[in-house]
């Protein structure tokens, strides 16, 4: 707190029923006034005569203190107040109306039960609206294909650049490092059996079948689901979405569809790219540390990784992409009210997208194993 400018401090003197105030009655002195006033008035009762003749300056806070005295001690009167001070006190007195500051207090049990109910309601509400949202997206997709202006490919390419091309650096680096870690940790265990060569099986199969796509999906969920939610949320707050509707543009068609299509197209490409870089990382480690030359690595990779692994990975990618995009856009449309809501919805978008991706990946794993792709 900055030091208050040096001014004579406020002083209070009580003689009989005569309260003398001197100095500056301003907000800078409010702390002193609040503490000293009850002390100075201790033991005195009944109407006061408040002498303001030695007051050097007053603002509304000072006026409020004087007004409070006049109000709480009926019959009190002012003496020596300047015209400005009187006007200020009158203005404050005029504004002394009961104003509610806080929402009504609700008892603990009722409040917590209310919260629980709100959660349950919110859960089912989100479930049904998100299903409806997926339906709306499909309808918009169908309409775009069969009638109207068709898919907005300009917007799709912009989104492909933002969600795909711009993500190449970080996803590539991450996959490369994961490949090295996978090979290195696998090698430590496999060396105990003298079976380092199986590092190639480990890296190749795990990457194409699971890790390449899963880690890419998690990264994309973090990057793009949040971006979609924040972009659409901010547009919603600024009434841009409403403006589109009034012009007759369907927000599903211009905002959601291009994002979903871009993600469906980009996710397999990103997943393939990530898998390759992961293999490169693993291969580099195998070459430098296990002395398996690249030619042998590639040769062995072709022998042990079945093509079904590749197709399993690639078949999951567009599904993950579509879901991440839909969840991001859905949460964006749920934004309402204030800036805080944008933050909440963005967080929710990322959490839900990652959660859905992992749950769905588990289903895929069980399904493909069950139908015999081992």
């Amino acid at each position: 707190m900055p030091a208050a400018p040096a001014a004579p401090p406020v002083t209070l003197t009580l003689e009989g029923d005569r309260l003398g105030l001197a100095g500056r009655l301003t907000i800078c002195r409010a702390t002193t006034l609040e503490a000293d006033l009850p002390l100075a008035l201790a033991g005195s009762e009944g109407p006061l005569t408040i002498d303001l003749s030695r007051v050097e300056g007053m603002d509304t806070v000072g006026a409020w203190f004087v007004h409070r005295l006049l109000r709480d001690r009926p019959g009190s009167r002012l003496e020596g107040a300047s015209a400005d001070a009187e006007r200020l006190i009158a203005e404050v007195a005029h504004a002394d109306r009961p104003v509610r500051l806080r929402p009504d207090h609700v008892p603990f049990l009722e409040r917590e039960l209310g919260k629980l109910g709100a959660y349950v309601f919110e859960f089912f509400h989100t479930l049904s609206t998100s299903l409806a949202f997926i339906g709306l997206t499909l309808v918009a997709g169908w309409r775009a294909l069969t009638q109207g202006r068709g898919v907005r490919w300009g917007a799709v390419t912009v989104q492909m650049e933002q969600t795909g091309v711009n993500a190449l650096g970080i996803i590539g680096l991450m996959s490369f490092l994961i490949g090295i870690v996978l090979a290195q940790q696998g090698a430590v265990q496999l060396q105990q059996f003298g079976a380092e060569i199986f590092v190639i099986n480990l890296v190749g199969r795990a990457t194409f079948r699971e890790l390449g796509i899963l880690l890419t999906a998690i990264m994309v969920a973090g990057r793009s689901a949040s971006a979609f939610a924040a972009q659409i949320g901010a547009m919603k707050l600024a009434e841009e979405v409403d403006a589109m509707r009034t012009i007759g543009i369907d927000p599903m068609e211009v905002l959601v569809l291009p994002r979903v299509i871009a993600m469906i197209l980009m996710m397999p490409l990103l997943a393939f790219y990530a898998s390759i870089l992961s293999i490169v990382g693993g291969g580099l480690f195998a070459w430098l540390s296990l002395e398996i030359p690249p030619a042998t690595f590639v040769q062995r990779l072709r022998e042990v990784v079945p093509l079904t692994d590749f197709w399993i990975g690639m078949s999951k990618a567009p599904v993950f992409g579509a879901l991440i995009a839909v969840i991001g856009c859905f949460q964006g449309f749920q934004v309402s009210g204030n800036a805080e809501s944008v933050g909440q919805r963005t967080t929710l978008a990322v959490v839900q997208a990652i959660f859905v991706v992992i749950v769905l990946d588990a289903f895929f794993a069980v399904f493909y194993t069950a139908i015999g792709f081992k």
Partner: protein
Amino acid sequence: MRNREPIIRVQGLKNQFGAQVVHQGLDLDVMPGEILGVVGGSGSGKSVLLRSIIGLQQPAEGHVEVLGRAVTGNDATEDADLTRQWGVLFQGGALFSGMTVAENVQVPLREYFSLSDALMGEIASYKVAMVGLPPEAGPKYPSELSGGMKKRAALARALALDPQLLFLDEPTAGLDPIAAQGFDALIRTLKETMGLTVFLITHDLDTLYAICDRVAVIADRKIIAVDRIEALKQLDHPWVQEYFSGPRGRAAATAQGARRPESASSYEEA
């Protein structure tokens, strides 16, 4: 009677965004206790001037002094000392959206003073009542308020520290005429009771006639004139002529003549 040192002094201000020069050699003095209106076409740099005065915009050249102190180049303590002398009402209100109206008003109080909760509640109540908000507005969030109520709540926050100086950026824009008239009256009353100096950016001709002591005109990247409206009307500048003598300007002048014939301004008396 009044201190004739200007409360705001802007000298040789130059603001530039890339190649676009917004202000060049702009000078302006605001006297204590006056309501100064600032007018100018859209994009003439009214808001940029406001931002320069309150230190949000670092000028390319020139010097800005408020209450005798430079507004840029201070350390944090000096900045805090200066900023609590003024209140700012932004165009859109700029209320903190995660807080209720009452909490918004209490933000500056909490920042600068350690008052008891009870006193802070009382201060917030009378400020809320003073700007003409209904009693049930206190616990509401900004998103639950209408445009006019948001402006009033933002004004209550701007007035929370009883500032000497009040900056208003288009206070009546977007209000219905009755609400705008009420807002004009409110600012006038507050100025008279609290002895405020008001720096007011507006497009609203009625507001200019109703409450401004002097009007500054921004055109051609500088202040081309600062004077009473009657004197400005005589000014030979195409924009000024069109502004005050166009149909809207004449209508506002006539309305004002009918409403407040005794419009002797307190600045003129000073």
